[in-house]
């Protein structure tokens, strides 16, 4: 198998705080075709009861992938990023991400499972705010292709 199964269960260090800016939310929403005014217009966001602009539901991938990078960078895990295919993704939002949030995140390797000569690796990344409250849980599965795949 192309990935070391011993890394299953391991939690990697948290990323430094990621500060969510209005412009990052606006730019991300535009890049995914998000037309909702609550991503773009502060007055619309406040009128809907939000403290600031609200991020798109997949915005959390920015923070999740920063945390997952620690696993990919771990030579012991043995993940060859050039052979990685994104297999599936899920976000469970405990609350919406809004501009002004300071988010940190840490990734745990939930499972490593052989798929032919390759491996399917599932990461669980818990995203928390600077009060330590849960914001989002990201589950990402990556298929690391084997030599003949």
């Amino acid at each position, binding site marked *: 198998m192309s990935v070391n199964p011993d890394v299953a269960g391991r939690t990697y260090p948290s990323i430094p705080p990621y500060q969510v800016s209005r412009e990052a939310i606006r730019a991300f929403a535009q890049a995914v075709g998000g037309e909702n*005014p609550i991503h773009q217009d502060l007055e619309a966001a406040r009128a809907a009861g939000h403290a600031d602009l609200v991020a798109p539901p997949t915005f959390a991938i920015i923070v999740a992938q920063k945390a997952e990078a620690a696993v990919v960078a771990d030579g012991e895990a043995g993940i060859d990023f050039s052979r990685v295919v994104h297999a599936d993704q899920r976000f469970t939002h405990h609350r919406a991400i809004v501009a002004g949030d300071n988010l940190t995140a840490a990734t745990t390797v939930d499972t490593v499972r052989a798929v032919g000569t390759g491996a399917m690796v599932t990461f669980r990344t818990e995203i928390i705010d600077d009060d330590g409250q849960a914001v989002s849980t990201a589950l990402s599965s990556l298929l690391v292709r084997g030599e003949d795949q």
Partner: protein
Amino acid sequence: MSTNTTRPEFEALEKGQEVATRTVELSRADLVRYAAVSGDFNPIHWNQDFATSVGLPNVIAHGMLTMGAAMQVVVDWAGDPSAVIDVQTRFTKPVVVPNQFDTEVRASTALTVSAKVAALDPEARTARVDLTVTAPDLTDPEATADSAAALKVLVKAQAVVACA
């Protein structure tokens, strides 16, 4: 531009109801833009020589761009982005994005997104919305977006929406 910021009324929803459809055109420039905003600069999403060197037919879209574009269709229906509390998908087929350039970069493919109510939870007042997302199969360099067969590029693409 959508201006709806009100959550859907739970009682007005029915299982099987189609709540939104959208066609999302994609160009190579859209992939570069998504790379910049997401921080995912894997060259399979912008460099054709690199993509083909690792066995891909051509440059392909980020799976997360396809997922993100599909989920925004749900956001615009849901009115308030914070109503979309859970999103998930499997990535089954790559979305091939050929180069299309004459005097400027142009869209060379398009996602077709359709969203239907699949399940209703009266206690939580949530709706599970299932998405069907297709793109033309442009694996063959001779294929064109108009004539190519449609491929399902996402499966089990679901969003849970908190209703009013």
